[in-house]
């Protein structure tokens, strides 16, 4: 069974068709990247898989469960990190993780919170209010939040967006490690080099359509390119 199975998926906002019938699938434990320019339909696709938006047509299944029909079941299996997500400003980092952990488990929320704290790696600042955090600290906290419950599928929208090199590299390391532990990762990014480093497979999406899909290594060979950025430019032209 595929972790994610997207078939002829269309998403419209009124008359505007943001995603125009895309299909792809993700295997268990894979890191799959959706890459493309702004407005290509990446975030819309991630939001629909995360049960935030409704499907206009087509089908999406996560672990064989239909997203449209059983969104509550999907939410138990996934974790979604939006691109510009925030945390509650009046809570401390620890309180925020506790708040989220309480929704996932009644048995061992403390253990889950401790895992989140380790991933976030904020030291003593974990007990400071979120309002006092820098952008990088906030993002680390949110990554910790997204991965602490060891989701079966982690959906990460621009996970290193706005981070400095050191923070971005650390987060990439965490993502790799999480996938090695059995979590399937679906991520989107503008950063082609990041995608090339992280992803087992990628889909290049432009104007709501998938224009090419495959392993980064294979795509580079196919298009005689040195990196995915070059592949993208050649495909779009």
């Amino acid at each position, binding site marked *: 069974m595929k972790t994610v199975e997207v078939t002829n998926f269309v998403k419209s*906002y*009124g008359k505007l068709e943001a995603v125009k019938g895309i299909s792809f699938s993700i295997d268990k434990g894979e890191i799959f990247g959706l890459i493309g320019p702004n407005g290509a339909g990446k975030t819309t696709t991630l*939001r629909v898989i*995360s*049960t*935030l*938006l*409704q499907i206009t047509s087509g089908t999406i299944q996560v672990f064989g469960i239909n997203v449209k029909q059983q969104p*509550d079941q999907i*939410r*138990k299996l*996934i*974790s*979604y*990190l*939006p691109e*510009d*997500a*925030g*945390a*509650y*400003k*009046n*809570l401390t980092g620890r*309180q925020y993780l506790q*708040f*989220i952990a*309480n*929704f*996932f488990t*009644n048995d061992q*929320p403390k253990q889950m919170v401790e895992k989140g704290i380790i991933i976030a790696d904020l030291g003593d600042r974990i007990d400071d209010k979120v309002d006092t955090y820098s952008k990088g600290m906030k993002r680390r906290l*949110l990554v910790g*939040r997204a991965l602490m419950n060891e989701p079966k599928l982690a959906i990460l929208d621009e996970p290193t967006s706005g981070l400095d090199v050191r923070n971005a590299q650390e987060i990439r390391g965490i993502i790799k490690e999480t996938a090695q532990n059995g979590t399937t990762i679906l991520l989107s990014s503008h950063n082609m080099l990041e995608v090339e480093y992280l992803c087992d497979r990628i889909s290049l999406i432009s104007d709501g359509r998938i224009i090419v899909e495959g392993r980064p290594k294979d795509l580079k060979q196919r298009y005689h390119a040195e990196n995915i950025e070059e592949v993208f430019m050649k495909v779009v032209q």
Partner: protein
Amino acid sequence: MSPLLNMLKKEIKELLTPGTILPIIIVTLIFGSIGNTMGNIEQEIQQKPMIALINEDSGIYAPVITSIFQNHSTIVFNSSSRSEKENAIETVKQNNGAAVLIIPENFSSNILSMKPGPIEVYWIVKGTGIMDAIPSASVEGLMYHAQRQISEILILQSNASSNATLVLNPVIEIDTTNIKGFEYPNISPGAIAQILSTQSTTTPIVMMMIIIIAGGMVISSMALEKENKTLETLLTIPVRRVSIITGKIAASAIVGLLLAVIYMFGIGYYMQSLTFDTGTGPTSFSLTLSTFDLLLVGISLFAALVAGLSLCMLLGTMAKNYKSAQTLTAPVTMLAIFPMILTMFTDFDTLPLALKTLVFAIPFSHPMMAQRALLFGDYTLVIGGIIYVSIFSIVVIGLVIWVFTTDRLLTGTVVGKKLARLKRKR
């Protein structure tokens, strides 16, 4: 911990910040201190005024004046010579007194020769405020009392066969007031209105305050979820939409009630300071509510609060950010103020049908009207109101849940999009 309790705990933590509580406490303290100042009025009225009395008259009418002032005021200076006037003024000033009364030597002789007897009053007024006028008003009251006594003596001395008191008060009013079929003996409608005014003012103000405070919180809470980009995370974790909605409404209701109690403590103290005990309390005229009635008022208040907060939640789903949330509180505020003003000045039964329908349709009207309606046994209006408001709440909560399951919550309203398209076309 249950998802609802978890949600409630987080919401209360988010809402109960120094920024929320401090303004309310400051307003409460301001009203409380105003109330404290106003509260001194009653004390002041009950205090005997301080005066100086110079009596140059040895006639038969001067003792009437002096005995009244001796019994009902504190005489800080007493003399029989006008030459002491300056000393008298100084003494009254030093004692924060109200006036210097001079009864000239021709006072009694003038009256005996059927001419008005003069009394010179030198008023000492500290300021122009309401409280500053109280001591002089008390002295004027004593002067009126003294005049009446002299009038009675004069009537008696004129050998009239009639009773002097009767001549001065030929009519006595024996009131029986019938309100909505209930008969109240020995009380006028004005006196009843005065008794009811405190009761019928407090509930509407409390209701309005709770709706404005708690409603604003619900709308802002939704707006902040969007502005701080926390809503998307919340909607993808395994928590039922109804728990999110109920958690937000319940937390706002709890915090709103708490803040309203703090607020009303100040307002209540202020309002209390404006009323004087006339000795005709509501209990003397059976104008009190039974325990069952109070329970109905409580249920009506709770139902209206849930309805109001659900409505605010629905409006909150339309808020894009904290700024737009401030605008969205306006219709709710208007809906709370309109029945408050109406129920304070008119009765539901006496309204024209169209206005009656409008008032009934506004959920906040019901607890505002409940107390007065129950005093006169109108259970149909109160119970009917509770049923209507409960149905209203269920429908609105249903709508909120529906909005939570659609794209509208994250992508904005259809109306919003149409407006944006129109703007682009222009």
